[in-house]
């Protein structure tokens, strides 16, 4: 059972090379935290798609502005056959927060990307409809309520 | 479900007591654990302000009275979570079971 995560790490490290930054594993909760470069996200998810043959549940994306220069994005996944909680982390600088959209790779991200965009202003390149989801229509452009500014 | 058993159930339901209670004429008594109107014991309050600090609905304010601070609970804001009861070191706020709190005027809802 414990080998599952080792295998996943190996595949990711091989596929992403230097864009794979580091990982942490919590054996008690079977939770794996992987830190990657933001431009490696689509590739990482393609690899995960391959390994799990699509048998995974995409939980959510958390965007967090922790008061530094970057917005931290956390992608939560649950791999069903491996029984493994995976958190893929990447950070995007606030000034130029462009991230490749994952809608083509993981369809379930469609609403979460919109939410992160409107709350934190992270631009997802290639998203079919990157517009407001929760906020009223008359909300000013470029004001993102969860930014610390 | 077969027809005879259905009929039997329908027949027996005819003679059962109704599931509802004619409320204003017949009072319902909530369980002893129910979180209703607070019972304030002013002699025990030291005015420390812990309850006001912890209140999630900002319903408790400290007002000066008889030369010290005393907590005042605005029931119109209170969410009856009783965090104030659990945080009070001297038991100056106690649990009450009274739930008939509706009033015409808002200032009647301020507990002193």
């Amino acid at each position, binding site marked *: 059972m414990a080998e599952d995560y080792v295998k996943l790490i190996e595949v990711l490290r091989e596929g992403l090379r230097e864009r794979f930054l580091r990982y942490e594993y919590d054996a008690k909760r079977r939770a794996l935290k992987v830190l990657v470069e933001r431009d490696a996200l689509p590739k990482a998810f393609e690899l995960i798609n391959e390994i799990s043959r*699509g048998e995974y*549940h995409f*939980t959510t994306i958390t965007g*967090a502005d922790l008061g530094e220069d970057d917005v931290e994005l956390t992608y939560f996944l649950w791999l069903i056959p491996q029984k493994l909680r995976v*958190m893929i982390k990447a950070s995007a600088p606030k000034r130029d927060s462009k991230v490749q959209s994952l809608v083509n790779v993981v369809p379930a991200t469609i609403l979460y990307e919109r939410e992160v965009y409107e*709350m934190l202003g992270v631009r997802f390149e290639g998203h079919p409809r990157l517009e407001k*989801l929760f906020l009223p229509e008359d909300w000013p452009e470029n004001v993102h309520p969860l930014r610390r500014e | 479900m077969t027809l005879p058993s259905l009929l039997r159930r329908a027949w027996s339901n005819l003679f059962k007591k109704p*599931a509802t209670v004619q409320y204003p004429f017949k009072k319902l008594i909530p369980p002893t654990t129910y979180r209703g109107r607070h019972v304030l014991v002013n002699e025990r309050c030291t005015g420390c302000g812990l309850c006001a600090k*912890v209140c*999630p609905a900002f319903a408790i304010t400290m007002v000066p009275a008889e030369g010290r601070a005393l907590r005042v609970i605005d029931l119109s804001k209170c969410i009856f979570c009783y965090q104030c009861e659990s945080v009070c070191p001297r038991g100056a706020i106690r649990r009450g079971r009274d739930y008939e709190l509706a009033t015409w005027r808002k200032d009647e809802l301020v507990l002193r």
Partner: protein
Amino acid sequence: MTTTNVIVGPIHPALHEPERFVFKVDGEVVVDVEPRIGYVHRGIEKAMSERTFTQGLYLVERVCGICNVAHTLTAVQAIEDAFGIEPPKRAKYLRTIVHELNRIHSHLLILGVACELIGFDTMFMLIWRDRETVMDMVEMITGNRVMSAYNIIGGVRRNISDHEVSELRKALDTITEKVRQYREMFAEDPTIRARFVGVGRLSRAKALALGAVGPTARGSGVKVDVRVEEPYAAFDEVPLNVVVYEEEDSWARFMVRVDETLESIRIVKECLSKMPPGPVKVPVPEVAPRSSEGFSVIEAPRGELIHHVYTREGEDKPLRYRIRTPTYANIPSVCEMLKGGYIADIPAALVSIDPCFSCTDRVALVDVRTGKKISIDLRMLARRY
């Protein structure tokens, strides 16, 4: 192809909170669906980082009134994870009991509402009558029928007495009997079958790809249940069977709920007998003891719920608090299941995900070609078609 836009909402497509769907219809068939949510956006995530951990607990409780226990449970677990605190064992069991009672009442609620929507009012009355028993039990244990305010960081608010345990057992026995009858009804009754079988199809592959959760996923044959996969509270010691139906339609989703209600009753009983004695809470620091992040995933009545919290050492407020509710995750799936169905099937399919975003039950039909607006009640829609 000429299509007509049918706007459903924003006030109440099916249940509790406002939500709007724009349906593109061709004749009677729905071609495309576009959701617009956020009518009750209260900025809770922002407000959370302006309140202390204890105050925030009561705020997350009010994210949703029906699954409030699920929200507080996730919140306390996430915060405990960030703080590095382990609650006592008895508290874990008590949390499980209240959590499962919450699930029972939530499932009974939606089963009743579903019956009412298809015009089966007797069933609705019966189910809701028995739901009252569960509400009374929740009130007895926690102090309020709905907002339990039971879970706190480091344990639970109050212990359960022997008298309460025996009362609870008695109530559960009567409920079990009733729910068995309802199961029979849902499985066999021609009215229910005629309205729900084959409606709102969601294939297994789609459910996986779109990230469906809870009974919506399990009704499509996806075997996911957080309680088994990432056991929290007392679920590592209390085994449970995951209910899965392969039919992929509204009926399967309701059957999942009925069976789960029975399963939950069994879990509560098992917890009552396995519960160890001991303290129910541990002292916790008021400020975060370390800069960390914590998350907690649980199986709320409507599906997987996740809270993610960032803390900074020495601060009494979370740095960032993220909540992802199950209905939100199910929105892409519900859009998918409505496509290709009839307008008349909208209520039957919508209610089957147990939506937690809609409050009254009003639907607006807009004919784009004539610009005419027809605003009708969802129940009217359910009856009229």
